[in-house]
């Protein structure tokens, strides 16, 4: 090939690079290894960490992933394709995404869905930006954000929207229920907001008064942004049915739908909305259409919202999304169907109730908040929760998430969770270990 180029060496091909810029030897990169050695090295490192039975949730849940899900998603034709720009050569991915959009719309009770965003937290940021665009007329750049929304979601939204001079105002949650009570709204009744953000089940696992909150916001011309766990929508009222007219934008993280925990990603953010604001949506959207022969086919549509067409006027800068994760979730939802997903939700609810019963049976452990919750619960321990989490890890248990890090004042609080995967034996082991550890601690 060098001959064809009339070059003596590959080095010649780099002759346009100014000599002083040529790099020397890489210092931090070791010598290359074979696949075998490299995999062994990664395994050695990872297996140095104890394998923990997972009672943590807080946005990432240990649900069972059927074997077929990733067997299908990792087929080369799905896994090694690019974004479906050449529609004729991408009908597989495109049809799958259209099916995905349909599933998500039905789960959330909304009109439309995009083809994914990065994760739930960044999806919330995009929802805020979208709401502000949709409310351009009113001109408000203020958002009322429930304090019971996942703290990392709130932080992410803040990092992303703050450069655009959007203000996020926190709506405090009630100290005894952990949720937003209607009374708290009074402090905000006077201001003009573009939108209200509510998460339900909220970060603490509690169910918000979604109907009242939605109606309150709509009565004031605000849009309602719902943050939800899609698994719970198998049984919980979908945001499209919140209050009189339903939420306007729904976002969340798709992780519970077939994505392994994997230290936090790849998961995917989903976003559904009312048809009338679809042109304000960020991200890819697939439409059904016909080909030259009039046969059904699928294509990217409404691309005039996107950066590759609109550049600085795009609704978002997002380009690569979380396609393969969505592929897995689509297969997951097809496999479970309405019944399977409902059972998963109900079993998670029940296992979690059993967990709370077993743990609050331990001396000094109490549920911190009252009121209905789904499959997560905040427990108050007699000692700092972070030390208990560390200590129980030595017993093979990931007890949950210590809340002091996020909420000063809740240092003794532990957010704990059970999914359908947690067995009675595992719950009993957790409770037994907690009892022992607390006895030690006292």
């Amino acid at each position, binding site marked *: 090939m060098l001959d064809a180029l009339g070059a003596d060496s590959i080095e010649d091909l780099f002759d346009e690079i100014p000599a002083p810029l040529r790099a020397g030897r890489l210092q931090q990169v070791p010598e290359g290894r074979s696949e075998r050695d490299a995999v062994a090295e990664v395994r050695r490192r990872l297996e140095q960490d104890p394998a923990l039975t997972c009672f943590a949730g807080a946005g990432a849940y240990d649900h069972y992933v059927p074997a077929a899900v990733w067997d299908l998603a990792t087929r080369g034709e799905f*896994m090694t394709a690019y974004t479906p720009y*050449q529609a004729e050569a991408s009908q*597989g991915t495109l049809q799958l995404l259209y099916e995905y959009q*349909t599933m998500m719309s039905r789960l959330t009770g909304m009109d439309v869905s995009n083809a994914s965003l990065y*994760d739930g937290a960044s999806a919330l940021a995009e929802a805020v930006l979208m709401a502000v665009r949709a409310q351009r007329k009113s001109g408000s750049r203020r958002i009322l954000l429930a304090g019971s929304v996942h703290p990392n979601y709130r932080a992410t939204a803040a990092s992303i929207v703050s450069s655009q001079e959007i203000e996020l105002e926190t709506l405090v949650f009630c100290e005894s229920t952990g949720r937003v009570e209607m009374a708290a709204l009074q402090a905000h009744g006077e201001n003009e907001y573009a939108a209200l953000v509510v998460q339900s089940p909220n970060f603490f696992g509690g169910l918000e008064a979604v109907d009242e909150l939605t109606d309150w916001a709509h009565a004031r011309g605000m849009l309602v942004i719902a943050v939800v766990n899609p698994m719970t929508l198998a*049984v919980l009222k979908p945001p499209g049915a919140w209050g009189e007219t339903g939420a306007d934008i729904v976002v969340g993280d798709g992780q519970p739908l077939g994505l392994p925990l994997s230290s936090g990603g790849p998961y995917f953010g989903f976003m559904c909305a009312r048809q009338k604001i679809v042109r304000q949506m960020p991200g890819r959207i697939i439409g059904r259409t016909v*080909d030259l022969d009039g046969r059904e086919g699928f294509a990217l549509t409404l691309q005039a919202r996107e950066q590759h067409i609109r550049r600085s006027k795009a609704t978002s800068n997002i380009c690569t999304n979380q396609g393969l994760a*969505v592929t897995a979730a689509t297969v997951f939802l097809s*496999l479970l169907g309405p019944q399977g997903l409902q059972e998963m939700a109900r079993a998670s609810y029940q296992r979690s109730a059993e967990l709370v019963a077993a743990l609050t049976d331990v001396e000094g452990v109490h549920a911190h908040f009252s009121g*209905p919750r789904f499959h997560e619960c905040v427990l108050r321990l007699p000692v700092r929760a972070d030390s208990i989490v560390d200590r129980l890890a030595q017993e093979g248990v990931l007890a949950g998430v210590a809340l002091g890090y996020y909420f000063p004042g809740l240092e003794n609080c532990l957010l704990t969770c059970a999914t359908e995967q947690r067995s009675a034996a595992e719950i009993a082991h957790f409770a037994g270990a907690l009892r022992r550890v607390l006895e030690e601690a006292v």
Partner: protein
Amino acid sequence: MLIFEQSQPGRRADSQRSDDGALDGLPDEYLRTEAPGLPEVSELQVVRHYTNLSRKNFSIDTQFYPLGSCTMKYNPRGALRAANLEAAQGRHPLSPESASQGFLSCMYHLQEMLRDVTGMAAVSLSPMAGAQGEFAGVAMIRAYHEAQGDTGRREIIVPDSAHGTNPATAVMCGYKVREIPTAKDGDVDIEALRAAVGPQTAGLMMTNPSTVGVFERRIEEVASIVHGVGGLLYYDGANLNAILGKVKPGDMGFDVLHMNLHKTFATPHGGGGPGSGPVAANERLRPHLPVPYVLRTEQDGQPVFRWADDAACPQSIGRLSAFMGNAGINLRAYLYALMLGREGMHRVGEFATLNANYMAKRLAEAGFDLAYPKRRATHEFIVTLQKQAKTLGVTAMDFAKRLLDYGYHAPTTYFPLLVPECFLIEPTETESKEELDGFIAAMASILAEARENADLVKGAPYTLPAKRLDDVRAARELDLVYQPPGE
């Protein structure tokens, strides 16, 4: 047929059941009144449906896929194996540091390797794709200026050849975009740049090798012009594959950059993602890196890895995701970097460049016009089909569609915008000469077809699951969600 059209009430994949629990204690007002309208199908139906859907895609595993700017190279299956290890998949993102030293050490080691490759001072792995990496980088530029009390800088300069995410990012970060033209030789128009910079300049975003497939030779001058007015330089690392181990962006004068691990470091594109877009910063911008990333400390002479969080990094632009970005993708990149190693990284850029130059040469010989015939190709290059469009009425789009019939994925078309009727062609280092030759022969054959029978080319493709799709109808008669007939 849609999966919904195969649905039958009551049908299910029975083995995917859960022991049914009761929703005791949940008031009705919280519950949905009817089951969600998911498909009701058997496991076989699911497997057959999605297997057959997958077969309608082109992909790297099945075809040569020379999509410029996208680096559609072979990503070793070993990287997937590493990410699929139980110890990788089973780790909860909020596991305590005390039980995560092994995982954190992987992330730290990857940060270090990327730091070295880019010639920067520190790396954060948390951005989830290139565009989010760009966001992080430009937000860091803004944070830096603000930290200096320098609040008057309202503009980001972007070459007209830039990827769409660049201007879109600048706007997301609250900046105005100022575009500068590309000179005839493919380099930035230096005079235009000089004219554009000033006290309003927050920074410049640039790709090098640029998206026109050449190396910006005056990059040092560009850097000094921007730095001269107090602006900062952002490096869009989407094209890092071309210069891996050859040139470090830090040495070119860039202050901050992102990488697309899903292009350069082994993650197949997954039909749209997921990716990972780590940012790297020099000393000046380091305090503003997005959290969390991994710090190495020592305790009794032993390394202890910790998360760098808001508390540790008070000047950080903050977090960009619920947890720590696409950790699993970073793990794949880590495995890939270990496999490549020092020598392998050099080879990546070398063979990517060799393949691109070879193709450029051969296509020119076959009668195609290169956009920058006097320049070395980098890892990619541009063919312009303007001549064919004018004389034969056969456009880049037509060539692209016809290539599909030949079993080749089309190159990137109509990007960058400044070159008319363009093909941006990136063969990558993992393709064999035989594939390149096959593609070149197909192009030559389509050119002959275009001369003899233009309609044949304009009607393509013929052999795919769909003919050309009606995009106008797709956008006008929006059908984004399946509605069963009669509903």
